[in-house]
């Protein structure tokens, strides 16, 4: 009962001079806050409207807000210790909203929470618990930033962060200390004033530093486009992507100002981790610097002073950055937007890129081979032609139709479908889905490919597509929507997982490490289906980085076609990691990943693990195929 007799001390009397001083300080602090915040808000609101923005589905927005902002789930889940520390600070702040309002009200003699009353007492105790957690949390974050110093936070120590941490700590300590002093004591007055000053100093610092995220990021999370890595359609005849400040939309500008510089994006970026110029955090901060210097009405090119073209074209579009971002920044649409700006205006010059574009302007596939090669493969493999009577259209894709290893995967998947008695057929003519040109920002060629394919599929009355390539699946399902209504499409891992019970059981202790392809995992949220097929074929081993934290193979974003990388090869780093698990076999679910690892392992020679797609892992247990049993 001793504890309950303790109440929050509040100075009972303020002289007129004190009240005037308080009013002056509040006005000064608020106007300093607004002077900067108003400018930022102006820059965001003066940016171009997002043509495709819609508040619906509201449910998704509310859920994201509750889960990511209120619950701090993403922050905690992806970095548990610092995440919890951050959550304590955040929840502390939430609890302090009422406390702070009452605090200032007390100063003007109109306090509305009575520390002696039941409600006031309860609330102040609750807030005290939060204050304690918040103080511990901020202390932890301080220790992490100044002593642990993870490299993601940048080389330079941020003294402003230290100062902010100090202010928050002071706020919490003065609040807690107020429980141990008497109401009318000078100590109570002193604590009250220190608490007040800390608040009034804190407020104007917010918009001047990355602590702007306190105000903006809840809105950023709520307003984000949603749909992972969704590339917005171009709006009108003069929109070529992100070329100058005039092309920055409100969402992009809001996201640029929301960045909290935590470096989660950099920590997971395959380019940044293999010695390339690209650092996703610097792209976002580059946009912010651009907005600060030139503003959203400027004709200055976005690529130049603050963002390097070279960096923008090193992105594999793996989406690890976007997945990790705790404040709702959508990096991939921004990076693709910058690429669109460079490619749609012809500003990007690259031998390999130009060759790829020409191959897809004129030909049918990204590999630049003759379409007759695909016909030969179909004939040799006796793949049935889709005629509208079969259940599935088996989409070959460039890798499945032209790449030797990709063809093996298709052949094995066809064997499984034959065994199951599933009817399927391939299109006589198929063009690249446009995935590499879409991610490289070539809207002209992408539109041509999407329209040609949509027309061919409609002519053939295709209802359901199955493909061995997550890139094809993603592009067909999401990106083609801009130009029509694509048929239903699924990845072969999903098909296989549904039919595993109809396949003969396998007894094997072979250790198989599964690599999550970016376009299947983060992009499509398919993690368990391919694992089930692996578990049937042997003993599943997890890589150190797996599921939504999987590390890219280096092929995405059109990079498979762009020639030699600078720095270390992404594929080699990942292949090393997979081999390091000691598994005898690497299981893949994407022909691009497969091709990248094939190349990486070929340098390893005999010591390299075996490399098999999940279709191959599944098909190898089947009895040998009778010839001509297709479809």
């Amino acid at each position: 009962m001793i504890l309950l007799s303790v109440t929050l001390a509040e100075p009972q009397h303020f002289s007129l001079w004190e009240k005037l001083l308080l009013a002056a300080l509040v006005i000064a602090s608020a106007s300093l806050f607004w002077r900067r915040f108003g400018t930022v808000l102006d820059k965001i609101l003066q940016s171009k409207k997002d043509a495709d923005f819609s508040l619906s589905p509201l449910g998704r927005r509310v859920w994201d807000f509750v889960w990511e902002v209120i619950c701090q789930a993403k922050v905690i889940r992806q970095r548990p210790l610092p995440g919890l520390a951050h959550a304590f600070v955040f929840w502390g702040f939430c609890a302090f909203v009422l406390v702070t309002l009452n605090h200032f009200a007390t100063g003007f003699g109109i306090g509305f929470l009575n520390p002696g009353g039941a409600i006031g007492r309860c609330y102040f105790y609750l807030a005290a618990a939060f204050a304690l957690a918040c103080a511990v949390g901020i202390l932890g974050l301080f220790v992490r930033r100044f002593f642990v110093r993870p490299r993601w936070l940048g080389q330079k120590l941020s003294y402003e962060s230290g100062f902010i941490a100090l202010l928050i700590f002071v706020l919490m300590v003065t609040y807690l200390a107020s429980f141990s002093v008497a109401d009318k004591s000078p100590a109570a007055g002193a604590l009250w004033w220190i608490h007040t000053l800390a608040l009034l100093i804190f407020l104007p610092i917010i918009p001047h530093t990355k602590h702007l995220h306190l105000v903006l990021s809840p809105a950023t999370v709520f307003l984000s486009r949603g749909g992972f890595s969704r590339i917005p359609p171009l709006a009108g005849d003069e929109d070529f992507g992100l070329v100058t400040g005039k092309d920055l939309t409100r969402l992009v500008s809001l996201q640029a100002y929301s960045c909290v510089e935590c470096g989660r994006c950099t920590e997971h970026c395959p380019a940044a981790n293999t010695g390339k110029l690209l650092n996703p955090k610097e792209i976002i901060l580059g946009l912010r610097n651009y907005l600060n210097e030139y503003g959203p009405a400027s004709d200055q090119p976005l690529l130049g002073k603050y963002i390097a073209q070279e960096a923008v074209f090193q992105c594999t579009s793996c989406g690890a950055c976007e997945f990790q971002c705790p404040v709702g920044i959508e990096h991939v649409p921004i990076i693709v937007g910058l690429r669109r700006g460079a490619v749609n205006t012809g500003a990007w010059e690259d031998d390999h890129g130009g060759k790829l574009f020409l191959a897809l302007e004129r030909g049918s596939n990204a590999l630049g081979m003759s379409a007759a090669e695909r016909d030969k493969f179909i004939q040799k493999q006796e793949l049935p032609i889709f005629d509208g009577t079969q259940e599935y259209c088996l989409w070959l894709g460039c890798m499945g139709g032209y790449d030797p290893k990709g063809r093996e995967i298709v052949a094995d998947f066809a064997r499984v479908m034959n065994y199951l008695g599933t009817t399927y057929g391939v299109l006589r003519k198929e063009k690249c889905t446009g995935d590499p040109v879409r991610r490289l920002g070539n809207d002209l060629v992408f539109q041509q490919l999407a329209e040609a394919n949509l027309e061919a599929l409609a002519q053939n009355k295709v209802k359901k597509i199955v493909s061995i390539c997550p890139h094809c699946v993603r592009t067909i399902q999401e990106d083609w929507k801009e130009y029509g209504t694509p048929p239903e499409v699924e990845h072969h891992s999903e098909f296989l997982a549904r039919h595993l019970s109809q396949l003969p059981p396998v007894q094997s202790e072979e250790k198989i490490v599964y690599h999550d392809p970016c376009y299947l995992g983060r992009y499509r949220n398919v993690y368990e289906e391919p694992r089930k097929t692996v578990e049937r074929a042997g003993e599943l081993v997890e890589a150190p980085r797996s599921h939504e934290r999987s590390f890219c193979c280096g092929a995405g974003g059109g990079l498979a076609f762009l020639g030699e990388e600078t720095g270390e090869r992404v594929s080699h780093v990942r292949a090393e990691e997979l081999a390091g698990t000691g598994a005898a076999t690497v299981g893949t679910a994407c022909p691009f990943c497969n091709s990248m690892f094939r190349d990486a392992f070929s340098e390893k020679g005999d010591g390299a693990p075996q490399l098999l797609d999940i279709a191959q892992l599944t098909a190898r247990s089947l009895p040998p195929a009778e010839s001509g049993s297709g479809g």
Partner: protein
Amino acid sequence: MKIIVAIKQVPERDAQVRINAAGKWIEETDLQWAMNESDAYALEEALQLKEKGGGEVVVVSAGPERVGSTIREALAKGADRAIHIDCDDLAQRDALSVARLLAEAIKPESPDLVLTGLQSDDLGYGQTGVILAALLELPHASLLLHVEQTSTGLHVKRELEEGWFQNIELPTPAVLTIQSGGSKLRYATLMGIKRAKTKEVRRVTPAELGVPPSAVVVLDRIAQPQKQKSTQILPGSPKEAAAALVEKLKFEVRVL
């Protein structure tokens, strides 16, 4: 410099070509079309010359309605305007007749330079550009990899056999036929396509040009190439087989 580029639309590289019922030409329905490859290089040379020395690039193309897409592609890549010689009977005309069409369309423009691909990917006569030079009464050079503007005229690089090159100086105006592969083709851009919509495409008919359909060379019949497989397996030990292989490469195939 005012540069005219004569371009032709041909079946796309991957197109499956079928012979029509008359056996005189290919079945044109359901075919995909593209810009003739060496014409694309001629256009690239013209655009590079314009970028370095200023001037205007005008493309001219003969053919039916569908040629419009190839003309737009040329405009999108940077040509300033176009002349479309609207005719449905291109297949019935020989190289002389087509060159006459082109010459009549080009004459009123009095260009400083006329470029075209060295041959078409469909018929492959390799004559249209050369005859065009004769009709325009202009000097010409063929099989060019590279064209440069100099203070006195042009400096061009020709490709000869066996890795030899010939560098020559030429006065302007001139007619040049361009070889594939001399430079890197630029890719078409969305901005280019949008800008191309506002560029002028003037249509003329063979009648307006005063060129009646006539052919000195008449196409008699076309046929699909016959495929032949004559695989031989050389017997004996590796050493004997290798010796036999060398023998065959030397005296039968004559590549050694």
